[in-house]
């Protein structure tokens, strides 16, 4: 198609927006807020997901040893642990050390332990699994394996937390999809009605265009571009505001349920592009619906 036709379409789309600037201002504002909420949800989801992946890959485990374990038994357990994929013993905590840690943790309330004559706390190995994927080492299998060893009393790891978070993440995903769907319908509704208003304000012009032999596409295209511009502008504003809010609060570290802290990152590049394309698609679809309805009425 000729370049000057496209120039004509864009010129008319921009003129449409300018001549109905308040309607478009309100519309773009509302769509931006919807997309901002949607973007904020994705940001939250991406970060929680990142954290889950990171945490899953740096699994920690505590191997509690039986009281009175011999030195050679302990060393054998240590060598077995070291043989596990990605496993690293980060600390050996003796019974004495465990007691000292507990006293330090209790602080002023350490007096509670005064009545206890023997130390009930077990010695333990603290293990960290670095960069290990779930398919390489299942924490449950490792737990069972280690608990079978002579001298091992119990093995604990963050399995329960992971499972809880996985459930939470699933609910979030599901909720997110529902929220995204509702937002999309709302945004479509707003765009469709805004374009309908601008079409209505130019109905005489459209009628005359048709009477002098304009093709349907010639009349429709500026309105489709108008919707696309609305979508793009709203997406752009939403992303800018999201980034500003992110930078302003810049909560670089977050505690969730008192568990290990995580870095808060902004939306990855591909998510930014996707959100942008999504807003463009919403704009185009909204104006397409409006234009289609209008032309059905016209014909």
């Amino acid at each position, binding site marked *: 198609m*000729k370049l*000057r*036709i496209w120039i*004509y379409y864009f010129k008319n789309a921009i003129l449409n927006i300018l001549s109905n600037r308040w309607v478009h201002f309100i519309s773009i504002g509302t769509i931006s807020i919807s997309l901002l909420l949607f973007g904020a949800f994705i940001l939250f989801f991406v970060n929680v997901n990142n954290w889950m992946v990171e945490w899953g890959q740096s699994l920690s485990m505590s191997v509690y040893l039986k009281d009175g374990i011999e030195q050679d038994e302990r060393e054998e357990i240590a060598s077995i642990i070291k043989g596990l994929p990605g496993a690293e013993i980060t600390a050996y905590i003796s019974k004495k050390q465990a007691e000292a840690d507990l006293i330090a943790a209790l602080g002023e309330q350490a007096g509670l332990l005064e009545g206890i004559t023997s130390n009930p706390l077990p010695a333990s190995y603290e293990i960290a699994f670095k960069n290990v994927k779930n398919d390489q080492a299942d924490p449950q299998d490792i737990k069972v394996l280690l608990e079978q060893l002579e001298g091992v009393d119990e093995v604990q790891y963050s399995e329960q937390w992971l499972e809880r978070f996985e459930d939470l993440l699933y609910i979030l995903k599901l909720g997110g999809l529902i929220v995204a769907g509702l937002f999309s319908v709302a945004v479509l509704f707003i765009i469709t009605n805004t374009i309908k208003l601008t079409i209505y304000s130019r109905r*005489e*012009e459209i*009628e*005359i*265009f048709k*009477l*002098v*032999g*304009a*093709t*349907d596409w*010639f009349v429709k295209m500026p309105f489709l571009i108008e919707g696309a511009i609305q979508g793009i502008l709203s997406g752009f504003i939403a992303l800018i505001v999201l980034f500003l809010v992110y930078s302003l609060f810049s909560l670089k570290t977050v505690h969730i349920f008192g568990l290990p802290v995580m870095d808060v990152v902004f939306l990855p590049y591909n998510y930014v592009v996707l959100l942008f394309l999504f807003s463009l698609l919403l704009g185009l679809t909204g104006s397409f619906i409006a234009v289609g309805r209008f032309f059905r009425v016209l014909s």
Partner: protein
Amino acid sequence: MIQIFHVAKRFGSNIALDDINLKFQKGEFVFITGPSGAGKTTLLRLVFGAERPTEGQILINGINLNRINKSRLDPLRRKIGFIFQDFKLLLRKTVSQNVAIALEVNGERPSVIRKKTRQVLRAVGLANKEHAYPLQLSGGEQQRIAIARAIINDPLILLADEPTGNLDPEITREILLLFRTINLKGTTVVIATHSKELLKDTDQRVILLNKGRIIS
């Protein structure tokens, strides 16, 4: 140029046209007259493709309007100029912008649009009014804008529905002269009117309609 075979048009139980048979040659100048409600406007709208006949066939330059699809109707309309009784002007656009619309839909270059718009406005006597808005002009001048828009594409056919309906006799004569000039260039002109002023002393073909039928 225009062939109409056994055309009837009904709106519900109301018969607007009944068994119309007509042929208009290329370059012909024809008046369609008759009282209000005779079917003049409906006949023009059928020829323009704005309505479809309930019965019968209409051929424009050999193209059957009953069988034409939308994508072919739009280019055909660019070859048919239509002047409406109510002018159908855009009041927020200037005279030249109103006229230029007919070229813009053709995707013409802006330089061509400017040149042809000036030429046609000169031809209809509105050269010095190109930046004016329709409401700043008289009824006769507004009619000239509509004529300029209808002829700017050098149409094969010019259809005019009561083009002098609200104009005084002197302006009516001027408008008629303008139609004659356009006709001399080879455009087939069909004017629907009940104006006695337009038909007075005419030596052109006159078709009389009444209650949707051709009387003479």
